[in-house]
């Protein structure tokens, strides 16, 4: 039993990072119909912010998190204005593939600036230790991604539903033309959505550095699983992305635990295939 619980817990933690990536992808897709292939690279950049904040300033990832979110938010705005906004005026295929090219550029830039070797936080972190519940041992650091995923999901929900900007984003996602006609600046709604998604990935990257190594290509796997989570949750559904991310983390960890670590990804794929064969548009797909 306790092995199962431990596995479940680890699965939820791993799934939290996927959930965070997936929520960003779902937000961007839902609002502007762009597949955000660069979400994993924003995660990677968030990890580097955390790494350098730790190495140069001795900060814990939790403390560096607002900084990382801010840096990635600003970077998101710049990338949207310089690249995405232009691509949106072009043919549909370049709209779909633009973030793919962007992710390549980000990976190789990171390699150029930060080096390709694997890194872990160099200074000791203060937020550490374990909580022993008897039936379950919780590493405090690993709570961070899960709490972050919960908070982000809650904040996104609140933001989109109750704030003026959030409503403008929703309206723009339903009908960009009509949004302009009622006085919303659709381009601004797009910019904020893209930047928010990238900020979420930045914060997730911070959380990840507590227990994961970083290198320029670290985002690729998370990106791929993030996409699958979005497809499973129903494209554009943030709640769906959140739940599927967690579910995939659990499937992944439990398969590794009970079947074989070598084939643990198969568990995720089976869950995915089963889900889409019953609900082709995903759990929350319409």
């Amino acid at each position, binding site marked *: 039993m306790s092995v199962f619980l431990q596995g479940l817990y680890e699965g939820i933690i791993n799934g939290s990072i996927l959930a965070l990536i997936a929520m960003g992808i779902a937000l961007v897709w839902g609002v502007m119909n762009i597949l955000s292939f660069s979400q994993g690279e924003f995660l990677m950049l968030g990890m580097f912010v955390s790494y350098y904040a730790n190495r140069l300033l001795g900060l814990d990832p939790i403390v560096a998190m607002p900084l990382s979110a801010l840096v990635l938010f600003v970077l998101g705005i710049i990338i949207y204005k310089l690249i995405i906004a232009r691509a949106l005026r072009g043919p549909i295929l370049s709209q779909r593939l633009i973030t793919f090219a962007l992710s390549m550029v980000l990976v190789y830039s990171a390699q150029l600036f930060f080096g390709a070797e694997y890194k872990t936080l160099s200074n000791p972190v203060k937020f550490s230790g374990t909580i022993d519940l008897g039936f379950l041992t919780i590493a405090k650091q690993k709570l961070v991604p899960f709490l972050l995923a919960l908070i982000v999901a809650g904040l996104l929900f609140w933001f989109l539903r109750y704030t003026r900007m959030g409503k403008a984003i929703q309206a723009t996602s339903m009908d960009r*033309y*009509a949004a302009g*006609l009622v006085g919303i600046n659709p381009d601004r709604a797009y910019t904020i959505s893209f930047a928010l998604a990238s900020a979420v990935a930045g914060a997730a990257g911070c959380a990840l550095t507590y227990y994961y190594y970083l290198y320029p290509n670290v985002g690729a796997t998370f990106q791929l699983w993030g996409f699958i989570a979005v497809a499973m949750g129903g494209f554009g559904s943030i709640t769906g992305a959140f739940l599927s991310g967690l579910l995939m983390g659990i499937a992944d960890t439990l398969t590794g635990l009970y079947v074989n670590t070598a084939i643990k990804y198969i568990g995720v794929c089976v869950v995915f295939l089963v889900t889409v064969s019953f609900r082709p548009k995903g759990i929350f797909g319409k």
Partner: protein
Amino acid sequence: MLKVEHVKTGYDGVPVVHNASLQVEQGSIVALVGSNGSGKTSLLRAVTGALPIMRGDILYKGQSIAGVKSFKLVEMGISMVPEGRHLFGKMSVRDNLLMGAYSVRDKGEIEKRLQSIYKLLPRVEERQRQQADTLSGGEQQMVAIARGLMSKPELLILDEPSLGLMPKLVTEIFEFIQRIKDSGVTVIIVEQNAVATLEMSDYAYVMQNGETVLEGTGQALLADEQVKKAYLGG
């Protein structure tokens, strides 16, 4: 109030309106009629900042608004109810109306406008909790106009407000537009229902192949042989 001067506009660099001019006096209803594909919608889109002005100019209260984006025009007092309604389908009727007042920040003011719209259109109030894309066509059209009014425009542009509605509803919509005009709002209207529209209008323009080719008071155009032949089925 609005002056369109020799405007050329189109899509992706291909012009569909070649030379359109019109003038709208404050407090009047001006109609734009013409056969399908003559460029009425495109011209309105150019006026409301959704299409580029390739040549000519658009003056609003004496100021050029060529190239000004839609969302800015709303704050300047121009509101457009587009062809095809374009409601926010997954939002409730009420939320659609609230979005119409997006540029207003004062909550009390927004509520006041909402109530005065509900008074004008009790049927919209009955449906306020319903999701917009589940409304009937006529109801959707009413909501689209109501949403356009929520920004308290000085100039209201209506593109085919009676499209696809049964005759009784068409009459109702026309009466409603008349009341909007009586409240002091300037109206530009595009309509297939040429007779009823011309009867209601103070002034009208006829478009053909992307050009404004005829103009006159509604009554004069109704009597015009050319117009009768082409648009009034006689």
